[in-house]
């Protein structure tokens, strides 16, 4: 176990270096000259030259790469080129609101999807099953924009159940008041594909021999489905769920934009628009690190659920 952890943590070093190299190459050779971008339209060669000096762009590639690595190691990516706000501060202040919306969506969506999937898998090929599957397909086919517009107009504006948009100061206020409608809509649009997917995972298990054994023991259907079948189906469900987690770091642009939530999603989109390299670099590196850490967590989780998994 500890050998496995050490090996995996050690393997992260070359992987991260690969990511750093890739980002460095992309920004230096594909991204255009940042000095021109920064100087804007009214620029003369002298100004550009001084900006190049400030950014260290006149140094050799080796020195520039060294600076980048240092930024990654110290987690200090400097300041945003467009707002001059430190990158670390941008991420620290914007990630919170995003997570206040996205984590409830993820948790509610997963729990609900699993429950519905177990139910439809149990009554498989019945009318209920088919009706829910059709409803899922329809729900999947409608754009999130439609959900947002209809939700804001009907539920928030006409019925007045939720604020149309906005964001407050305290976590409690945000979670219960401002995040409620975005979470509801996020769940509504995200749940359908998960139900369909989890249903197939569960159906794969329902026909296994051990399910027949469980019934032959005289267990009731609840125990068969929720204890024996679901635990086995959890393995692919975990894979699916964990693969999504790194995306939490880049927020959800549409939801944040429409509900005026000061989240990271807007920052990411704005940074790309303005070629705000420090912000983009920082986010890219953090997503890469999160992906590696979550992959490791996923493997540990497999081990917890499935005794057959060998961590080597």
């Amino acid at each position, binding site marked *: 176990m500890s050998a496995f952890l*050490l*090996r995996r943590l050690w393997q992260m070093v070359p992987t991260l270096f690969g990511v750093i190299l890739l980002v460095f190459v992309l920004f230096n050779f594909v991204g255009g000259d940042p000095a021109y971008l920064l100087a804007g339209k009214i620029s003369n060669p002298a100004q550009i030259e001084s900006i190049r000096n400030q950014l260290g762009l006149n140094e050799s590639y080796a020195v520039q790469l060294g600076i980048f690595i240092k930024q990654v190691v110290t987690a200090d990516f400097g300041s945003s080129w467009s707002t001059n706000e430190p990158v670390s501060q941008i991420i620290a202040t914007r990630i919170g609101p995003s997570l206040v919306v996205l984590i409830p969506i993820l948790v509610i969506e997963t729990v609900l999807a699993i429950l519905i999937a177990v139910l439809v898998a149990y009554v498989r090929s019945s009318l209920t099953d088919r009706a829910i599957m059709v409803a899922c397909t329809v729900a999947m086919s409608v754009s999130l924009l439609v959900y947002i517009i209809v939700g804001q107009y009907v539920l928030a504006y006409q019925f007045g159940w939720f604020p149309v948009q906005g964001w407050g100061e305290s976590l409690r206020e945000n979670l219960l008041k401002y995040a409620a409608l975005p979470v509801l809509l996020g769940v509504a649009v995200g749940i359908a594909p998960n139900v369909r997917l989890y249903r197939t995972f569960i159906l794969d298990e329902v026909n296994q*021999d051990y399910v027949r054994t469980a019934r*032959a*023991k*005289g267990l009731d259907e609840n125990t068969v489905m929720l204890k024996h079948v679901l635990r*086995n189906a959890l393995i692919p469900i975990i894979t699916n769920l964990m693969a999504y987690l790194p995306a939490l770091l880049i927020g959800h642009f549409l939801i944040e934009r429409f509900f005026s939530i000061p989240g990271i999603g807007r920052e990411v989109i704005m940074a790309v628009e303005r070629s705000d390299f420090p912000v983009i670099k920082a986010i890219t590196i953090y997503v890469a690190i999160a992906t590696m850490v979550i992959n490791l967590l996923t493997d540990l989780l497999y081990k917890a659920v499935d005794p*057959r998994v060998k961590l*080597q």
Partner: protein
Amino acid sequence: MSELLSVSHLRVSFRLDKATTIEAVKGVSFTVSAGETLAIVGESGSGKSVTALAIMGLLPKENSNVAAGSSVRWQGRELLGLPNRELRTLRGSDIAMIFQDPMSSLNPLFTVGDQIAEVLVTHHEMTWKAARKRAVALLDEVGIPEPAQRAKLYPFQLSGGQQQRGMIAMAMAGEPKLLIADEPTTALDVTIQKQIIELVNTLREKRGMAVMWISHDLAVVGEIADRVIVMRHGEIRETGTVADIFTRPQDAYTQALLQCHPPLDHRPRRLAVIDDFLEGKPPAIALQREARPQVGAGETAIAPILEVRNLSKHFEFREGLFGKRLLKAVDNVSFTLPKGRTVGLVGESGSGKSTVGLTIMRLHQATAGEVLFEGKNLLTMSAREQMPYKRRIQIIFQNPYASLNPRFVVGDILLEPMRIHGIGANEREREALARTLLDKVGLPALTLRKYPHEFSGGQRQRIAIARALSLQPDVLICDESVSALDVSVQAQVLNLLQDLRDEFGMSYLFISHDLAVVKYIADQVLVMHAGEIVESAPSDDIYRNPQHAYTRNLLRAIPRGYAHKTLVAS
């Protein structure tokens, strides 16, 4: 004896799609009395397992239908139509069931002890703590060493035999009056099979329970049963005491089943096939008895076509931070295959016999050793050099369901290798060749346009044989090629292989766990154990006078049916 179970006019059908319904069980009636062992024998599709599942109320509810007029009575009480809630109180307590493949029948994510304890908690309202303690006692009863430690293990940490013992312990937990055993030893090695048979017999005597033993193997049934039911195509062909069935079989099908399996005491020229009996022309016993001459004994004159020298295949596994563990799957194996002869390679699962075949084919990279084909080492050849030799050595695998590409029609399966190796001048010639091959293996030319799933297991294995033959190989490696087939089909395929060898002068490396089959087909037999060849002798000698302790053990474990049992008893 009091009657426990009475099944009458049981009819079960399965709806495959809107248009097709198949009748799996067509009006079956029988009874099981307390304390007796009733065996139901039949080939795949005979409806024997479906009958068992119908008794347990475990048929898949979506597409199965038990016809009106069917009846399953347990101690006088009708079970069909009983609500699931009431059936549940019988299942696992009064009637328990064990299945074919213990590995897949146990839930992989729970410990064996907990899976046994679950029965006790469900039926006897025990606390988990008490139930776990009782589970250890049950594991002890079914002969698992160190039961307290083993109870805490997961199924994958136990051997196949121990898993089946665990399943039996689980069945015993509810103190059943009837144990339904559905092919409980089919997935196990012969030596383990013998132990499981003995265990079930002991438990039956000790607990006075009845056993319904379902099997395709008459030899096994002969050792265990009091009464036997022979089923085919959903109907009962014959019912009788075990003595009647084995010594005075009335039905042609029963007679055929008894004759189809290769015998151990002599070597018939051909094996009987079921159709001979059903068409009322049983092959003359003389032809049956006529010994096929054994070739290969002591002959050195024939040049070897294939010579394997010191072949090893080791697998490495990582362990710990820097550690490695070595598995010697094949270790220092040497043998020669003379031209036109058959060498049999026997061993139990994990003995490395299949790895030998795969390594010769270079489907595994050998760790060490040489494979000389007409004197040239196959293992050191470049891909280009090896190409002509690839054609000359072909392999047929065990599972005809998995080894044919499901998206290819049979025509493509046969033509593709010919195209790759440039056999036949053009497409027309190749097709003609494919048709001849199909004819040779007894399939109609129409087969070319069909997909593998449209054929039965036996037909599929013939397609696999035709595919191998399409390259006109000199050496054919048969890796458990008849193991997945029913006895009657197995006899047909063995006869076919025999004919093809005589006609084309091919040489076979015949890999199997079934000693009777190997004895029938092989001239020389190699016994493999833990990656090494422990004994090598002409076929007849090895069965008459086995030298190695492992070979003797293996031979002793083969079920020999009723005659043997009575012989030993007297």
